[in-house]
């Protein structure tokens, strides 16, 4: 007997008629149909949080913009993924991320291998219109192998999610509110003194910027590898 996965919905994305399962998000359906929506906090294999807002899309008849990564498809929905309004907001989001932290690309170990930098270029950020906040944030080098530089953190929470959901350690979490939000290890202990960290390095590899990096790297030398995530997810699905 055939197993019914879920009901099928039909909708329009950028004028294109598409079919989708009801448990799929706008982002998934768009990707299946070759429509690329920019993302930053989203990573296949991790839970969805809609933190970065880069994937905001318009739905005809809806008053608010919605994140494509956390919005499920509905029958008859008309989605617009790339309008002037969306381009304006996406560029603004990237600029605000740059202004809020200390993203000095020239001296960053992730220079040239940074998802924030790539997105800035792709979304046409030729300068940041907002005043740099130049916050005074923590650099923690107490871990034997890794460094956390909160100056370059964009609070995407990929590290929090991979540590909790994949490694099962939940060493990382977010502390504070608003502009004072920052990632902490355990109850705000130095990373090197963490009783939960297994030193697996998953957080380092999923971090889109130079906030979590390996020690001993010079500017531009840090290259992140996220392939393990798809592999682990696949193997766990097989096991189920």
């Amino acid at each position: 007997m055939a197993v019914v996965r879920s009901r099928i919905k039909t909708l329009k994305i950028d004028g294109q008629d598409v079919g989708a399962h009801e448990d799929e998000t706008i982002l998934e359906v768009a990707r299946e149909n070759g429509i690329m929506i920019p993302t930053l906090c989203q990573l296949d294999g991790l839970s969805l949080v809609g933190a970065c807002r880069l994937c905001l899309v318009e739905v005809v008849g809806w008053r608010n913009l919605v994140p494509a990564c956390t919005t499920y498809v509905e029958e008859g929905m008309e989605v617009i993924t790339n309008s002037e309004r969306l381009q304006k907001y996406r560029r603004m989001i990237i600029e605000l991320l740059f202004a809020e932290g200390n993203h000095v690309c020239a001296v960053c170990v992730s220079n040239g291998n940074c998802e924030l930098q790539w997105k800035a270029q792709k979304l046409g950020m030729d300068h940041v219109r907002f005043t740099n906040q130049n916050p005074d944030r923590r650099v923690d080098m107490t871990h034997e192998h890794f460094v956390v530089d909160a100056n370059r953190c964009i609070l995407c929470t990929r590290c929090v999610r991979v540590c909790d959901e994949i490694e099962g350690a939940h060493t990382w979490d977010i502390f504070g509110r608003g502009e004072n939000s920052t990632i902490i290890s355990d109850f705000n202990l130095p990373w090197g003194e963490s009783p939960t960290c297994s030193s697996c390095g998953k957080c380092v590899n999923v971090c889109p910027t130079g906030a979590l990096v390996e020690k001993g790297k010079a500017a531009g030398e840090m290259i992140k590898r996220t392939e393990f995530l798809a592999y682990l997810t696949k193997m766990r699905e097989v096991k189920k």
Partner: protein
Amino acid sequence: MSKVTLATTWLDGCSGCHMSLLDIDERLIDIADKIDVVYSPLVDMKEYPEQVDVAIVEGAVSSEEDLHKIRMIRSRTKILVALGDCAVAGNIPTMRNKFSREELLDVAYIKSATENPQHPSEVIPALLPKAVPLHEVVDIDVFVQGCPPSADTIFHTIAELLAGRIPADLTEHTRPGA
């Protein structure tokens, strides 16, 4: 046809962007016929002219002198180009912004001084409280990111300006840290 007058200068920068400008190499000869360099560290001209077509400025605004200079340049220049990450975004000079001026001067002139420790009071221009990118203090017409921007990017920018166009979307050519 009269030549386009071009000025270049650096504020709080390392001169690396000017190095990259010179890296245009033999293409410099092509553009040399079309421009008149009226003010630059590369030529011997002490005063900024009253009227300049294009100014290319490297470096952030960090001191009273920088601020005075960029305002003067803006008032006498038709098209102002911010060249490189320090001019566009502040970059390395802004890494001091989390410290106060007093802390900085203490480290540079008192704690690390071997004799006569004191804050400078003359000749050296006073530091501004924070180093800022050019567009925080004057209007900018063209932003050229990169540390430094590549010679190709700079050549493209100059070629577009010489063709009478403001170069559109340079993010296809460069990015921060490029």
